[in-house]
């Protein structure tokens, strides 16, 4: 009898608990007289579909216009004007989302996870700047990307970053890209979006941490040209890789450079590559030996990176909600933790068996085990290739923008004396026909 009573009590408690999870109709809604008109719950609509197509159209137009301004018009003022437009449209109006930088993660998640449905506009934001860069260089960075635009416009007192620091920090974007892909592909987190420095500014709201990060980058950006683009941006890393092989790109006066180095002084981004053929290495045999040693070092770095990455798989996997929940539940069951978290309480309320959770967590951890090795190996490769590229810069006999580092801002056009002469000749050619200079096309 007592057992039955206790059972009834438990049943009552259980039903109360279940009911409390959903809410029940405890008080029947009243029947009102004719006098009362029941208000309707408002449902503000989401942003219209056609507006996201408009975003893509504006992106294409801005990319085409900037490429035209950089490569044909060679106009710094034009690039500046598009920058202001992009800052207003992609920054303050579109509030920085969807952006090409973050789209890397959507694409990674979609490629590695067949159940994730990626919006078409995000795919377009990922692909279009890459395609344009493949043909015209980093014109996206020049004036279309709102992150680049804000840093370009707030650069007031540029300082040179020492070459050794520039090379060392240049590794970071690739590491960040690798980490971003690892965490996105495993469905854990979109870290590139979480630590986006300027998005809080564009939204004019955000957590203290985000606003502080934005302020720090803006203040640093007054003195150091585009700190985010050069030393962190993961999409910039992709673009710089592609841009090295672009069909066209920013070049100054390739046929009659006078080695005045004004472009080198004027470029705030350290993107002007020095002529390497001017003072070659004193001992070619020593150089060759160094190159062979570095080439042998690359596979070693890759293996070392892969090994280190593999050891980080388990700690990395805790970024995934399922893994951290499973660890919490396991710790609670083992009596190691007294206090349950909201997540573990909510999980227990669903009545899902613990084994299912553990199995899912193990699956995620397995994905991390492989992914972390790849990530580590990739970082090792980046270090190795950076060492080689520092030791063996691109061969050229003039001062000219490096196709990977140059963001096509067009500042050097304004300073290059040969370029000034060229523009002046074009202007006067319209009045008096002149004999063409070397390298100029007869028209």
């Amino acid at each position, binding site marked *: 009898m007592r057992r039955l009573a206790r059972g009834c009590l438990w049943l009552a408690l259980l039903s109360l608990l*279940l*009911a*409390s*999870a*959903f*809410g*029940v*109709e*405890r*008080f029947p*809604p*009243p029947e009102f*007289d004719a*006098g*009362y008109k*029941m*208000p*309707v*719950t408002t*449902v*503000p*609509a*989401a*942003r219209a*579909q056609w507006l996201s197509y408009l975003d893509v159209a504006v992106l294409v137009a801005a990319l085409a216009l900037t490429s035209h301004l950089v*490569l*044909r018009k*060679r106009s710094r003022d034009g690039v500046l004007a598009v920058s202001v437009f992009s800052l207003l449209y992609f920054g303050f109006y579109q509030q920085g*989302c969807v952006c090409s930088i973050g789209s890397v*993660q959507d694409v990674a998640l*979609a*490629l590695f996870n067949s159940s994730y*449905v*990626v*919006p*078409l506009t*995000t*795919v377009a934001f990922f*692909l279009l700047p890459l*395609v344009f860069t*493949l043909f015209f260089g980093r014109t996206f960075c020049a004036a279309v990307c709102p992150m680049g635009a804000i840093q370009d416009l707030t650069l007031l007192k540029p300082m040179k970053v020492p070459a050794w620091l520039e090379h060392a920090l240049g590794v970071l974007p690739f590491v960040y890209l690798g980490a971003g892909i690892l965490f996105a592909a495993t469905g854990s*987190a*979109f870290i590139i*979006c979480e630590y986006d420095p300027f998005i809080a500014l564009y*939204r004019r709201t*955000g957590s203290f941490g*985000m606003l502080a990060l934005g302020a720090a980058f803006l203040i640093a950006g007054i003195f150091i040209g585009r700190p985010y683009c050069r030393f962190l941006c993961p999409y910039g890393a992709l673009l710089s890789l592609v841009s090295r*092989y672009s069909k*066209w790109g920013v*070049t100054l*006066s*390739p046929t009659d450079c006078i080695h005045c180095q004004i472009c080198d002084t004027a470029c705030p981004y350290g993107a002007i590559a020095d002529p390497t053929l001017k003072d070659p290495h004193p001992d070619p045999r020593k150089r060759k030996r160094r190159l062979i040693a570095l080439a042998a070092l690359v596979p070693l770095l890759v293996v070392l990176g892969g090994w280190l990455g593999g050891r980080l798989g388990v700690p990395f996997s805790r970024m995934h*909600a399922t893994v951290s929940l499973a660890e919490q539940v396991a710790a609670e069951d083992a009596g190691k933790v007294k206090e349950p*978290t*909201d997540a573990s*309480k*909510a*999980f227990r309320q669903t009545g899902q068996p613990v084994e299912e959770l553990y199995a899912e967590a193990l699956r995620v951890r397995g994905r991390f085990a492989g992914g972390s090795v790849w990530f580590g190996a990739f970082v090792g490769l980046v270090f190795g290739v950076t060492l080689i590229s520092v030791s063996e810069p691109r061969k050229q006999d003039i001062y*000219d923008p490096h196709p990977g580092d140059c963001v096509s801002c067009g500042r050097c056009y304004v300073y290059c004396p040969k370029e000034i002469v060229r523009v002046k000749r*074009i202007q006067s050619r319209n009045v008096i026909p002149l004999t063409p200079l070397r390298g100029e096309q007869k028209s």
Partner: protein
Amino acid sequence: MSAPITKPESSRRQFFNGTVRGAFLFLLGAATTLLFRRSQPKRTVWQIDPYKCICCTRCATECVMHPSAVKCVQVYPMCGYCKLCTGYFEPEPISLDTGAENQLCPTGAIKRRALEDPYYEYTIDEPLCIGCAKCVKGCVLFGNGSFFLQVRHDRCVNCDECAIAIACPPQAFQRVPADKPYLMKDREHQA
């Protein structure tokens, strides 16, 4: 200036660059086909399943928007129009009036209006609501559950990865079609 100025480059470098460019184009093409197969033109937006929500207050703190894009909504046909609304009043109110000391809502975002005796109408003043779910908890635990949280799409910026969704303990956030962006409760769907 009919064509962009180009560097006079050795044919070897030109050939190499062209080959790499072709490889990149091929890769991009392959990625595009794969992505298009896994993409959809229809936009989706984030929404909370109100039947999963545990009123943990994270919606008020985790959203990238301050105040949050998540707000409380009232579905009037479900409301009991109670005189002692457990979503409106503190657990043991000093008196049943609109005094701030009696209200559960930290921002006073619920408006109470007397109708025919003994019924009162409760309306959310949306600009004031911060999505803390205190009223939701009161209403779900002791009332009809006509108060619940929803992502308001005039405020949500639809991040690719919703900051609340990753912090949500019962994982109540899900993507829904943009043309049907709300998951409303109704009287038939009671437990």
